[in-house]
């Protein structure tokens, strides 16, 4: 991955969020407060503007900028969580390019920062349920000799599977946890936006 690819990735996320904005909000209205799509859209629109003309000499700069922008523009839990994730991913990528192994480590650093901040574990019906399997799948592909595109594709598939697996879960973190057993039967909006982010990565890398 290089600087232009990192920029294309966050722009692809913005496009995906724009396309699925209403769907994310609809998922959130079932078990949250009906604003996830709206908030993510506000955040990634700001990110698109922020990274459009920025000068960068390392891959991570674009992603750190994206993270900082999300923290300053999204609010809610998503702002700090996604913001910290992108900042941690970016901080781990301090060269003009990154190979798949380095990118796997960066994704893992992002996951770690989200878990530290949000204190959610797999199975709590959160973005972690998509993020954690995606990181594992990416690493597995890299370790078995797969290239960037194969790893990103595997991560996107794993994130989607993890996203779908949140439906039968009872939420234990975030606003949906207030519903108790009534949160069962609904797909988690955060896991859904995380799956969009990994799908955007796979599509950007495959281009």
């Amino acid at each position: 991955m290089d600087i232009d690819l990192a920029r294309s990735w966050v722009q692809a996320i913005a496009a995906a969020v724009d396309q699925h904005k209403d769907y994310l909000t609809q998922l959130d209205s079932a078990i949250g407060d009906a604003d996830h799509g709206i908030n993510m859209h506000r955040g990634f629109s700001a990110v698109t503007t922020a990274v459009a003309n920025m000068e960068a000499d390392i891959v991570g700069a674009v992603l750190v900028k994206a993270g900082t922008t999300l923290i300053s523009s999204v609010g809610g839990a998503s702002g700090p969580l996604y913001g910290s994730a992108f900042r941690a991913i970016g901080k781990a990528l301090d060269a003009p390019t990154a190979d798949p192994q380095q990118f796997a480590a960066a994704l893992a650093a992002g996951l770690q920062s989200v878990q530290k901040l949000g204190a959610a574990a797999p199975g709590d019906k959160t973005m972690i349920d998509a993020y954690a399997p995606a990181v594992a799948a990416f690493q597995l592909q890299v370790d078995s000799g797969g290239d960037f595109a194969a790893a990103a594709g595997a991560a996107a598939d794993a994130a989607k599977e993890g996203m779908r697996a949140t439906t039968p879960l009872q939420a234990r973190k975030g606003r949906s946890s207030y519903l108790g057993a009534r949160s069962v039967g609904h797909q988690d909006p955060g896991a859904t936006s995380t799956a969009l982010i990994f799908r955007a990565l796979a599509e950007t890398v495959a281009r």
Partner: protein
Amino acid sequence: MKKLINSPETVLDEALAGIAAAHPELRVDAKNKVITRADGTIRAGGVALISGGGSGHEPLHGGFVGPGMLTAACPGEVFTSPVPDQMLAAAQAVDSGAGVLFIVKNYTGDVLNFQMAAELAAEEGIMVKTVVVDDDVAVQDSTWTAGRRGTGATVFVEKIVGALAEQGADLAAVAEMGRRVNACSRSFAVALTACTAPAAGKPGFDLPEDEMEVGVGIHGEPGRRRDKLRPAREIVATALEAILADQPLAAGDETIVMVNGLGATPLLELYVVFNEVATALTGQNVVIARSLVGNYVTSLDMAGVSITVCKADADMLALWDAPVNTPALRWGT
């Protein structure tokens, strides 16, 4: 969606402009989205109180900025917590050097954004302490939830702690009083209708004409369970049962009681509810020493009511009676 707006995108900016126009005693920083007192900040050397949260709960928090209550408020987008930059800007604007107290309702987003703001403020050399309000007994406080929500007790914390800060107490004392007020306050709410966020355009959930949501929060999210609509007496009994099971009250205990409308409930009905609360509590020889009936912590256009009971000691009652002069709460001045 039927709303008195120009467009969903401009609701917050235009409402803030309206607050500025209606209340010359407040200063509205439209760029940073921070509301402060126009007459400077606080007494020299005083602790500043900053609260904030998603918009849609008016008059919370901006309506409680003024002498005897908040020093600054940070309104976020509708039902979305403010971003750290707002609280940092507020802290920089109002800190006298004695430090700032963040009053935060217990929602994941609010807690995270205020936590980040506290870290940023500390880097700027501003002392920060935080009180997290979590009074809603509809949510079980366990490892299986994000913990109890912060609702009506926020008003009690902001009023009582605001009076203490006005008297010149230091940051540690002000924070400790905030924790004490929160610890002895409990709330419970029911909704008769869902509310509609301007950007969402439709109600957060569907509720048949003859049903109610029991144990709702203040963000239009569904409650713990759904039930047939019942007479006010039975609804109050359900709410008080939950409140008293968590915080038992003995004969002679003094309380501050708030019956709060969620946005679309007539005052007439709120007084019907208050009558039931008063009858039930006085029946147990619990003293309602002070009361508030009205719309203080709303949930946009939701019809419904929240009941908050604070088991108050003499210090809290004296601070409650101290002068306050804000757009939404004003007495003794």
